[in-house]
């Protein structure tokens, strides 16, 4: 696959949805209500599929290391910890699991 073509196409489908509304915002507010609602909920819906199963399968036989990281990050932010803290604690948990329980 041509990587540059992929990079620029992904750039286009990222930037156009961000830029066009600044030039067409009045028309967009007239989309059907249910569609607008779906768009607002799409990020939450995407998160589950972004995490599972890849966060586990990326670690192969040591899938529990991925699970430990994801679970700890989730818990930290559930209790209003900042994202940076979530990431640091996830790194520590995952590294700890990899060192304590190597496959």
């Amino acid at each position, binding site marked *: 696959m041509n990587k540059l073509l992929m990079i620029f196409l992904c750039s286009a489908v*990222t930037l156009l949805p961000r*830029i066009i509304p600044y030039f067409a915002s009045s028309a*967009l507010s007239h989309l059907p209500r249910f569609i607008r609602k779906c768009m607002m909920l799409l990020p939450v819906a995407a998160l589950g*599929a972004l995490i599972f199963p890849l966060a586990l399968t990326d670690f192969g036989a040591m899938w529990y290391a991925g699970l430990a990281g994801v679970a700890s990050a989730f818990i930290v932010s559930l209790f209003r910890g900042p994202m940076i803290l979530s990431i640091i604690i996830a790194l520590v948990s995952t590294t700890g699991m990899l060192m304590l329980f190597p496959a």
Partner: protein
Amino acid sequence: MAVSAKEIREGVHDGFPIFLGYFTTALAFGLLTRTSGFTFVEGVLTSLVTFAGSGQFLMINLYNAGSLLLSIVVSVFFINSRYIFMASSLSQRLADPSSVPGRLMCGFGTVDEVFTVASFKGRKLSYSYMAGLIAVSYIGWTSGTAVGYAAGTFLPDVVQKAAVITVYAMFASLLGSETGRNAKAVLVASVSALLNSILILVAGLSTGLSFLISMATATVFGALIYSDREAGIE
């Protein structure tokens, strides 16, 4: 549009936490582009021209999974379609909605964290403020990618392996804070997590197609269980 040094400084100040978060997350992205067989230029170019967290990770993940180009581009578009609404919303808060370069800049910089910080500012947004906020976030993202790519091999193997978790930790963290605001978020995410796992691990579907089906199903499920108000539409 008048340039105000004070407004730029305020934007940079408000953007500092975004800088830290983006820099660390981009370290993982830089490393990931390297382990995925990208050159340094290709890796940094991706961040320079795209400036999107989840979209870029999705692109690399699908690329590594051997997905078709069309499937990658469509998936990236779908995950980014939320920006249509973030950008529409933010465009209503501009102090001077007429400037074309100003709107182009805001459009380029409407990433999730910039959107959130700017939206909760509670007043009309000047382009100087937005320029400061966007620039500091952009520098964090692109420099993090470059450093992550360059420094990646100096990290011990176990740390390199663990760095993979940074991406997922960012997503889990977003989900955690969303669940803190509304517990229904974890239900919606569970639907897509479960469906995606079944489609990939049991049914053997391609990652891209499975992702689209899972995300779409969970979105409709979410739209049915959330009230309009909870979803943030009036």
